[in-house]
């Protein structure tokens, strides 16, 4: 009803922004684009009711969820680009650990900035190697990055004999996870910053359009003169670098570098991205969706713990929920 009256008003002159938006809304998938946000609201409402007495809605618990979501969200943004380009990066979990160790190693003697940059640099390097092997040797990225996962995990384990490396640098910890701006945790700020950067890069930079084109139809992108090899490499570099930044955030919050940080994030991150509306097979991506997906995953995690489930049962419940959610979002995607 409202929709009708608006378009009637507008159709007198040129298509108004509202009308243009409605047209795009209808033809670009309608309500389906917003499934992830509805799911977020639904899960939030459900937990708020059934876990009301367990303090789900307390500010400290919500903050907790946000903190948990931060590394997942950052990795999800990076992964969204890898998937959008038609690749996948299974090495992200190991890069988190590598990055935390590099940061811990460097921060002590060279300061927080050098530590962060070294960690990001090492992560980007992993992405370059992933990308080059994928593109030049033409091995599917799921195999390349699976191999890389093993290699980097091994390096991380050997780094300090499975022991954690302490980080004693208040600036580093303050900026990357433990501190905040006034009452707002720095982790929440980083979620917003990375989310906005990712969204901007996808929609307002030539590179973002080329990533989508490459993932949607590599041959057509090639025919348009796009260097799709370089685009794919850059997307894998972005996903590795984002994982490296997630590693910095974990290292900052815990004030350590350790070989097993990020170990069990992979499935969660992929689930967050796919639930958020990014196509597992390229050509469609949503950064805001990925961030929302990460919040959903963190919320689920938190809710299941508050419900008092055993660890084993949490794993099972989480696995079931992830498969259901991904199946649902992929089915929605296929219909559009």
């Amino acid at each position, binding site marked *: 009803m409202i929709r009708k009256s608006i378009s009637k008003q507008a159709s007198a002159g040129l*298509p108004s922004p509202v009308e*243009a938006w409605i*047209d*795009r809304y209808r*033809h*670009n998938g309608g309500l389906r684009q917003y499934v992830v946000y509805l799911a977020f609201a639904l899960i939030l409402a459900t937990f708020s009711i059934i876990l009301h007495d367990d303090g789900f809605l307390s500010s400290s618990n919500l903050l907790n969820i946000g903190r948990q979501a931060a590394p997942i969200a950052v990795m999800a943004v990076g992964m969204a680009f890898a998937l959008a380009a038609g690749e996948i990066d299974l090495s992200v979990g190991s890069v988190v650990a590598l990055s935390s160790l590099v940061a811990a190693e460097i921060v002590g003697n060279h300061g927080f900035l050098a530590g962060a940059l070294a960690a990001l640099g090492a992560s980007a390097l992993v992405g370059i190697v992933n990308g080059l092997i994928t593109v030049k040797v033409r091995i599917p990225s799921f195999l390349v990055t699976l191999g890389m996962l093993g290699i980097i995990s091994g390096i991380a384990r050997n780094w300090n004999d499975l022991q954690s490396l302490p980080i004693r640098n208040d600036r580093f910890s303050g900026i990357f996870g433990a501190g905040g701006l006034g009452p707002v945790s720095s982790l929440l700020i980083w979620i917003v910053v990375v989310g906005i950067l990712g969204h901007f890069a996808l929609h*307002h*930079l*030539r*590179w973002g*359009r*080329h990533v*989508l*084109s490459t993932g*949607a*139809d590599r*041959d*057509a*992108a*090639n*025919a*348009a*003169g*796009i*260097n799709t090899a370089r685009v794919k490499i850059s997307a894998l570099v972005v996903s590795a670098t984002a994982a490296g930044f997630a590693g910095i955030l974990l290292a900052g919050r815990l004030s350590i570098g350790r070989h097993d940080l990020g170990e069990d994030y992979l499935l969660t991150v992929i689930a967050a991205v796919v639930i958020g509306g990014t196509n597992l097979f390229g*050509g*469609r991506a949503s950064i805001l969706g990925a961030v929302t997906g990460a919040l959903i995953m963190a919320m689920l995690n938190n809710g299941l713990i508050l419900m008092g489930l055993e660890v084993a049962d949490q794993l099972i419940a989480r696995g079931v929920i992830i498969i259901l959610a991904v199946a649902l979002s992929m089915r929605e995607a296929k219909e559009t």
Partner: protein
Amino acid sequence: MSSAPALVASGISKSFRAVQALDDVSIELHHGRVTALLGDNGAGKSTLVKCISGLYQPDAGHIFVQGTEHRISSSRHARELGIETVHQTLSVIDPLDVAENLFLNREHTRGGWLGARIGLLDKRRMRQECASTLARLDIRIPSLRRSVGSLSGGQRQAVAIGRAVAWGQQIVLLDEPAAALGVEQTQRVLDLIVNLRDQGVAVLLITHNMDRVLAVCDQAVVLYQGRKCAEVNVADVTKDDLVSYITGARGTG
């Protein structure tokens, strides 16, 4: 013969493993003329177009653009030489909108030097120019901001054609550009081709429709199983002649 040819491809051969798709094929495109490239399915037409537009590297042969020999290494290179192509299957990017497709890999940027470096898109300018370009070409699309994947097959094809002819390139290769089009749209494409010709563009048109050949083409080159079997002035032949060349019943040598 009038002016120097816009493009000469001579002695082009290309094989894919056991299949010899092209065997010593030569073709000339002239400014202000439409050349038909004919042949049955699998005759090698698309392969020749891809060799000229930089997607394939021929095994043998030479390509001259405006009189100078070039080894066309990529579709980007072909564009720089003034060659624009609508490929038979490789066309538009579904998730991008109409304007984004039109400007794919030719994006306008804003924000000065820095904006150009990072590739900051000037979406408003691209949308405006897209609207005026499509209007000039008389291509009608419901909304420029719709993803191309949500358009009809003919509309997508129209966007692909618009993209190829919008840039004032001197050489335009069209591989079955009207295959998905209805009657009215097909007529528009033919008008567009005549228009390009009148502006001095050298056009190569691949089609299976002999009426279109007779309507808009000046010359025809016919391939049969990867070899050139006929090269004729369209004014000198009938529809039946063309069909007999295509089926291999007859050749001009």
